[in-house]
């Protein structure tokens, strides 16, 4: 049985900077690993995190806007309004921060539509960010995605550890076990030796996250 695998904050920072350097100009089709930048807290050092903004396609607000339209033929025929309701590009601010409680990275994100309004959890579940097939028996409450018999919700709201702003985050309590298991398996299969052990850890973390988040 593989042991849980964690990393320290400095190892996380080292791995993150190595990831950015490795994939900055890479021609690999590894969209999950590209486009990240390292951000620091404006005042306090040592609270850095990976940050990225992604555009998602979705029309989460379409149905809501339709309900708000008054029942008038003139409005329905107004092409400008109709176009605005269906232009569903969503902005997703993504962060990978260090969780000192669990000693692993944690994925935080916010999503808002083209008008700047934050999406509700039900709308987020319907975007392309989360892989629906990975959420088979999930209860969607207004504040969290809850799995039956689980101690913690899969997805819930929390304050971004460095920015302090509200965001959604994937709970990292199972991360250490799963990444440890995967790294143990890679070592057992005698895969080519990695030059940067912590970068390898982070890449394995991304692989694990790919099960639920379409990065």
């Amino acid at each position, binding site marked *: 049985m593989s042991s849980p695998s964690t990393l320290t904050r400095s190892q996380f920072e080292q791995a993150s900077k190595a990831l950015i350097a490795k994939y900055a100009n890479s021609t690999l089709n590894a969209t999950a690993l590209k486009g990240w930048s390292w951000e620091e807290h404006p005042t306090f050092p040592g609270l850095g995190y990976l940050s990225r903004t992604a555009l998602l396609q979705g029309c989460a607000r379409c149905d809501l806007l339709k309900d708000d339209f008054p029942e008038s033929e003139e409005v329905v025929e107004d092409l400008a309004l109709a176009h605005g309701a269906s232009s569903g590009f969503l902005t997703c601010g993504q962060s990978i921060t260090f969780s000192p409680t669990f000693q692993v990275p944690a994925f935080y994100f916010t999503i808002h539509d083209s008008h700047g309004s934050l999406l509700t959890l039900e709308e987020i579940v319907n975007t392309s960010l989360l892989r629906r097939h990975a959420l088979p028996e999930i209860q969607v409450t207004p504040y969290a995605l809850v799995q039956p018999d689980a101690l913690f919700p899969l997805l819930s709201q929390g304050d971004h550890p460095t920015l302090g702003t509200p965001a959604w985050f994937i709970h990292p309590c199972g991360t250490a076990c799963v990444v440890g298991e995967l790294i143990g398996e890679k070592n057992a299969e005698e895969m080519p030796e990695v030059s940067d052990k912590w970068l390898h850890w982070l890449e394995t973390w991304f692989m694990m996250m790919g*099960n639920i988040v*379409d990065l």
Partner: protein
Amino acid sequence: MALTPDAIHLSSSLSAPDPASDASLAEGLAALESYKKKDPAKVVVRFKAVGNAPIMKQNFFRVTVSNHFQAVIQFLRKELGWKAGEPLFTYINLAFSPAPDDTIANLYRSFATDGHLIVNYSTTAAWG
């Protein structure tokens, strides 16, 4: 009313059949028909358990390439007797987690090793 040059051109194009556009239309329809046909070819998928995941007696299966990866996930769940709510995570070559709508054809073409597509599977709960 006298016809304008544009109207004459339009009316002549409507009345006389254009062999070139008929040929390209036929070609387009043929392309659509061939795209609709599902490739019956099969490739070998090899399942490899990760960590404490149950090991199956048989790990090699033939899968039709036109299937999406979602079909492989559902097949694996059925073979393991794993219900929908129980955690099951899949990886290709322990390198990435494929999207459920990726086709087996593309995955095999890009990532097959030694004539089979390696699908690693893990049952360790990752979330919550």
